[in-house]
């Protein structure tokens, strides 16, 4: 509130400094927000491609699994699934995009050959192998999607935070500071006008006093001169 600020020159200078700093911060944050949005757009395109690939891979994998189930039976498919020894693993590293740390996911043991699957050549059929293959491919796309979508989430969080800061500066802090600046300037101008008025009054009074003194002196002089001429 402007009324809470003491209308002094010192405060006015402090507020002017804060306005300058806030305006500079506002410009920088706006640039950061725009940069983040541009980076986000690139990731969004990538995410949309990955998402459509993910959906088609999922459909293929499901179709192949249903085929394996229909031809080999549910028990055989579940048996093959239970026999697996190798499990896919992921390791996460990070990279920095405009100050946002986004993950880079590396995967191991996703793709396996027949001997690594653990159910043996005799224990399964080509359809189960095809289904396993399709699901391994799906897992690879899922890992890629996880990387891209996590990056998107992190970028969105940063964009939201930056946007909130920009809005706080633009719609709260800067208007308050401008209001305080106007208030102090108006008060100081008012004080200046009062001071000029007061000085004018004092000057008028002083001139009046001097004029009266001059008149009195002139009168006294005239009286003295009259007395001398009468003698």
């Amino acid at each position, binding site marked *: 509130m402007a009324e809470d600020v003491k209308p002094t020159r010192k405060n006015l200078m402090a507020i002017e400094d804060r306005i300058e700093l806030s305006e500079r911060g506002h410009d920088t944050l706006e640039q950061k927000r725009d940069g983040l*949005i541009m980076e986000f757009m690139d990731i969004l395109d990538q995410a*949309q491609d990955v998402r459509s690939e*993910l959906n088609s891979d999922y459909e293929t994998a499901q179709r192949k699994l249903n085929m394996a189930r229909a031809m080999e039976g549910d028990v055989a498919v579940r048996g093959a*699934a239970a026999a697996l020894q190798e499990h896919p693993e992921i390791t996460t590293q990070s990279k920095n995009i405009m100050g946002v740390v986004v993950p880079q996911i590396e995967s191991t043991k996703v793709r396996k050959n027949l001997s690594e699957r653990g159910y043996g050549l005799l224990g399964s059929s080509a359809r189960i192998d095809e*289904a*396993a293959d399709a699901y391994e491919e799906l897992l690879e796309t899922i890992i890629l999607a996880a990387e891209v979508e996590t990056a998107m989430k992190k970028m*969105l969080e940063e964009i939201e935070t930056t946007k909130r800061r920009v809005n706080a500066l633009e719609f709260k802090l800067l208007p308050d500071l401008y209001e305080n600046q106007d208030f102090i300037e108006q008060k100081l101008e008012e004080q200046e006008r009062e001071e000029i008025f007061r000085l004018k009054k004092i000057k008028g009074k002083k001139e009046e006093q001097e004029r009266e003194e001059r008149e009195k002196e002139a009168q006294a002089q005239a009286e003295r001169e009259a007395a001398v001429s009468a003698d």
Partner: protein
Amino acid sequence: MSQEIAVIGSPDFTTGFRLAGVRKCENVPDEQKDDDLDDAVERVLEDEDVGIIVMYNDDLDHLSRNARTAVETSIEPTLVTLGGGAGSGGLRDQIKRAIGIDLMEEED
């Protein structure tokens, strides 16, 4: 630290992933999803060895609001939904909120 992939859903949904070697599977039959899916999600979210959660997009509707928000906004582990559009898993709403425009509109 190496992490694993976890799959939550009906046994039909998880079987294929088991075939690809995923061992962290939370099987929740369709008829128990309203009651048990929240607990399954909570268990997986608490597991530090899990880096990616895979769920079927429609299964998110069975979650309570808290569990859904927790899994959708989680970054580690991160959620990947299958069977939904590019804006699935809460991303579309988040984009609308952050950017101010529905960038996923053309995907519908």
